[in-house]
């Protein structure tokens, strides 16, 4: 007879527990030792910049990286300080974040969700990044935001314009400075009403993915509310290059406005095709035919060249703004790189400063502490006027710019002109707005 307390059932249980422990990703085991994921212990803190370095948005990604590097310089007390000098919060002293030197690692999203998640995961697990930021696509931003929520790090979104990012896919660990489709629509609609009247027939061509759908919904709702009729909403494959077969039906549709819910290469090609087919010279229903590009990007406008002239759209920020903060940022960026920053560069620069400031105010790198510091935070001096990081959905509410393709550009950068600065109050929506329904912010995860 044996006195051993080992039993078959006990061994199985022990084995299962041990196996589960071994199988746990390092991302979770690491946090069991530290107070939170990647708690900085040395004299530096590492940020992860996850941007498209290859693929169709590589130029925007490159501009984002430039701005990130500039922000890191300024945080570490190098350079002229940029918008640190104009930021309403005076917590940041140019000594890194809470005395820890800011270092960074970069990842390549390739504008693909799986690649973006893989590079973010690598930066968190291998490089010890305490925060992930970046992106030039809503699909990518939503995917990485979900990963950061699981991993227990803060995600400071870059260029993502879909309502879903802070709507049905919002996460407690995710924060967005950039504006969204609803805000574009709310800013554009009154301008379009003044320019083109209330009796218009709009035809939508829409990129067939999350961003396109939410922007189409937003613009259609806003224009219909002011009396426009939506003739048709046509989804176009994201991989489309020649839009002629989608433009041709517009000619005989009775529409007198074409709304291009396209971005990037899609926008360049669809706008070029629309202009080629003479839409802008066309008179329909006794009115001049008009084209609207709700989301403009200077980098993309360059690809469309003269075709953007006179065409209205919206943008998060533009280098020609004359407030002190914008001028400081343009000077800092322009002196270092030789050309003005894009809106993508601006938003990621702001996000980096906002993260550093929140950590300093919270006195911790714990994502839950930083989240609390960002929630409901009101600030100014970052180029968009007074801004609120709303606690309920982690969306920034600030002024939105309505812009127009410039008729007589004086340089290769001088492609858009600001027509109107729409005040934040006009683009603010209730937190339970139907376009942002579904999903919950959830609770903060510190890892």
């Amino acid at each position: 007879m044996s006195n051993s307390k080992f039993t078959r059932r006990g061994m199985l249980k022990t084995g299962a527990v041990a196996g589960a422990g071994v199988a746990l990703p390092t991302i979770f085991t690491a946090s069991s030792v530290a107070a939170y994921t990647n708690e900085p212990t040395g004299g530096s803190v590492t940020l992860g910049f996850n941007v498209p370095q290859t693929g169709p948005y590589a130029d925007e990604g490159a501009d984002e990286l430039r701005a990130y590097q500039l922000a890191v310089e300024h945080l570490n007390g190098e350079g002229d300080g940029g918008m640190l000098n104009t930021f309403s919060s005076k917590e940041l002293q140019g000594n890194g974040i809470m005395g820890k030197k800011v270092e960074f690692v970069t990842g390549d999203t390739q504008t693909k969700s799986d690649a973006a998640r893989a590079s973010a995961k690598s930066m968190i697990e291998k490089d010890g990044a305490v925060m992930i930021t970046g992106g030039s696509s809503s699909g990518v931003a939503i995917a990485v935001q979900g990963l950061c929520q699981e991993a227990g790090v803060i995600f400071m979104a870059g260029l993502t314009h879909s309502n879903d990012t802070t709507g049905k896919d919002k996460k407690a660990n995710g924060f967005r400075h950039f504006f969204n489709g609803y805000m574009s629509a709310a800013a554009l609609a009154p301008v379009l009403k003044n320019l083109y009247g209330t009796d218009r027939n709009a035809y939508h061509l829409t990129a067939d993915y999350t961003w396109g759908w939410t922007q189409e919904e937003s613009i259609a709702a806003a224009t219909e509310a002011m009396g426009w009729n939506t003739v048709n909403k046509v989804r176009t494959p994201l991989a489309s290059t020649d839009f002629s077969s989608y433009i041709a039906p517009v000619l005989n549709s009775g529409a007198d406005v074409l709304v291009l819910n396209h971005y990037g290469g899609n926008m360049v090609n669809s706008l070029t095709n629309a202009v080629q087919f003479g839409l802008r010279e066309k008179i329909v229903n006794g009115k001049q035919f008009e084209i609207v590009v709700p989301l403009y990007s200077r980098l993309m406008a360059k690809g469309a060249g003269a075709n953007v002239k006179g065409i209205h759209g919206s943008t998060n920020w533009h280098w020609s703004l004359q407030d002190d903060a914008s001028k400081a940022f343009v000077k800092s960026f322009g002196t270092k790189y030789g050309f003005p920053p894009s809106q993508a560069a601006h938003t990621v620069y702001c996000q980096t400063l906002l993260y550093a400031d929140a950590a300093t105010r919270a006195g911790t790198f714990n994502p839950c502490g930083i989240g609390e510091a960002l929630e409901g935070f009101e600030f100014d001096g970052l180029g968009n006027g007074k801004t609120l990081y709303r606690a309920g959905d982690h969306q920034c509410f600030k002024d939105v710019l309505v812009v127009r393709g410039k008729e007589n550009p004086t340089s290769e950068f001088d492609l858009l002109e600001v027509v109107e600065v729409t005040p934040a109050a006009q683009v603010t929506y209730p937190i339970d707005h139907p376009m942002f329904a579904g999903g919950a912010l959830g609770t903060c995860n510190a890892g």
Partner: protein
Amino acid sequence: MDAILLQVLNGLDKGSAYALIALGLTLIFGTLGVVNFAHGALFMIGAFCAVTVQRILNLSYETVDESQTDFLGNALVVKTPYVEAWFGAETGGAIIDWAVPLAILFAIPIMVFVGYAMERGLIKHFYKRPHADQILVTFGLAIVLQEMIKYFYGANPIQTPAPEALSGIVNLGAIIGMDIVYPVWRIVYFFFSLLVIGGIFSFLRFTTFGMVVRAGMADRETVGLLGINIDKRFTIMFGIAAAVAGLAGVMYTPINSPNYHMGMDFLVLSFVVVVVGGMGSLPGAVLAGFLLGILESFASMNEIKSIIPGIDQIIIYVVAIIILLVRPRGLMGRKGVMEE
């Protein structure tokens, strides 16, 4: 009716690009037996020949205008193209305006050289290797070429407009009392493609060189036994095929602003065109190019999409499956090509 005719025109226009690329692919496959996945990259390089010519013609000297400032508040640096300085603003401006058509002259020797170098430097080492190896190496080459272009020209599309005189619209239906407006440059592209296709067919049909090439395509061994260096001629044909793809790319630039990825966008479709047309069949490639272009355009019509949602994204592949089921060798494929 107007809408249908418009889609026919769109289809012919799309088909022009498909046909030109597929023609080059078929020439290479028919002569050298190589499945060239780098052919889309040749189309892209052709497009960037136009971008390069545009940039060369816009090379400028700089003067400082103290009366204006740049975005940093410094005195504005004004750039004046050398061409305008040498030939006067009007003539110089006209030369710059015609950059795309002028790029044809630049692209032909460049593309022939690129094709020749590609064949001699890499592809000839894979003649006796399986098609899978050829696909892998040429696909890899395509990625290398597009990354090189991205390194030098960036990832964003670059605007390369048509000459002003050819960039408007024309009402093709005016004669028959209909309203069918169509961009002039797209009509130019269609006729240009017909010209190139006609030129290639005439070259193969009416010249001794072409006759030998056709004989070599039919029976390479026998032609070799006659003492003719068929390999050399096939290498030249590779260069010509590269030039055809390049010219298609040059003239395509005003239709869609070129970017480094444009070759890949056309590559898969062009292979489908070749297979549907019949491997190794030049008339088949041209016929299938125009046919699939028209079908793709019709599938994009709202009336069709309302019946079968998403048909615009799959029509070419659906038709390819049907044709290959009914005619396994494609529309005009010959027995023995790509068959054991």
